[in-house]
């Protein structure tokens, strides 16, 4: 059962890879890579159970953290064309709470 789920997730990874390759716009690719990272986390979790060692879940959690941070970094890069801008505290950035000045 877990093995079938693992194979299904790997096939999902293939589909997301196709979207990353074709992706007409940039955001398609960012979204595809982010989902790919999520699939990786799920695959690692299942892999631990398939191989009889569920302690691999720790690694899956680490991957989830890295995936989140790097997606935020990529999106920040494409909004500001720079990494040196603080994410909070700027007015007029389109964010909901950007009231304070730098």
């Amino acid at each position, binding site marked *: 059962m*877990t*093995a079938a789920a*693992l*194979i299904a997730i*790997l*096939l999902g*990874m*293939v589909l997301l*890879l196709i979207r*990353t*390759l074709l*992706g*007409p*716009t*940039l*955001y398609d*690719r*960012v979204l*595809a*890579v982010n989902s*790919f*990272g999520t699939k*990786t986390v799920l*695959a*690692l979790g299942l*892999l631990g159970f*398939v*191989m009889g060692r569920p302690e*691999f879940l720790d*690694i899956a959690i*680490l*991957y989830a953290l*890295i*995936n989140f*941070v*790097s997606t935020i*970094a*990529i999106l920040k*890069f*494409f*909004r*500001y*064309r*720079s*990494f*040196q*801008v*603080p994410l909070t505290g*700027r007015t007029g*950035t*389109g964010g909901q709470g950007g009231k304070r000045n*730098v």
Partner: protein
Amino acid sequence: MSDPVQADIGLALVNILLLGILFVVALSIARIRSLFAIVMLSGVYSLVSAVWYVVVDAVDVAFTEAAVGAGMSTVVLLGAMLLTSRTVKPDKKFARLGPALVVIATGIMLIYASVDLPALGDPTSPVNTGVGLTYLQVNWADTGIPNVVTSVLGSYRGYDTLGETSVVFIAGLAVALLLGFGERSLADSIRKGDRLPTPRESEPAKDEDDAS
């Protein structure tokens, strides 16, 4: 998956799928012209290879690959993209024939050499008979850590690992201080009266394939 033969077939299938994905990603990194797509695909490559490292039981390598490959290097490559153009220059049709021949020859030699390697987990291989066997025997009684690699890195060579980590941390810190990343250069640019980079509302980010 109680049947071991069935489990073996399942793992082989997982291996084939993962390595196939790696192959396709590597091939398309070599073919695609848009640098942004290449950065994204290199992130995908790191993630998949990290999963594959877990499958072949190299958990510590998988940790490093995930942190450095998928996390850091994507961000570093995006930073490098700021300083250059967004697409690869198209090159002549047969300009890369020589490098391709070198790569293919190296690959054939590596495959030829890999025939002599002992099988994965072979108990009679040199790695598993000398010092490795001693570590396998005394590890559990000494440290109580199930993963032998972790126990060697964190316990037997704990001070060594601590020193390495400190050296890498200090090196990274020194580079960051020399280049002046972050708050200081931001404060400098504000003092000089430069405009901060503004969000590009009017100009939606297009993919580089058509923005060139």
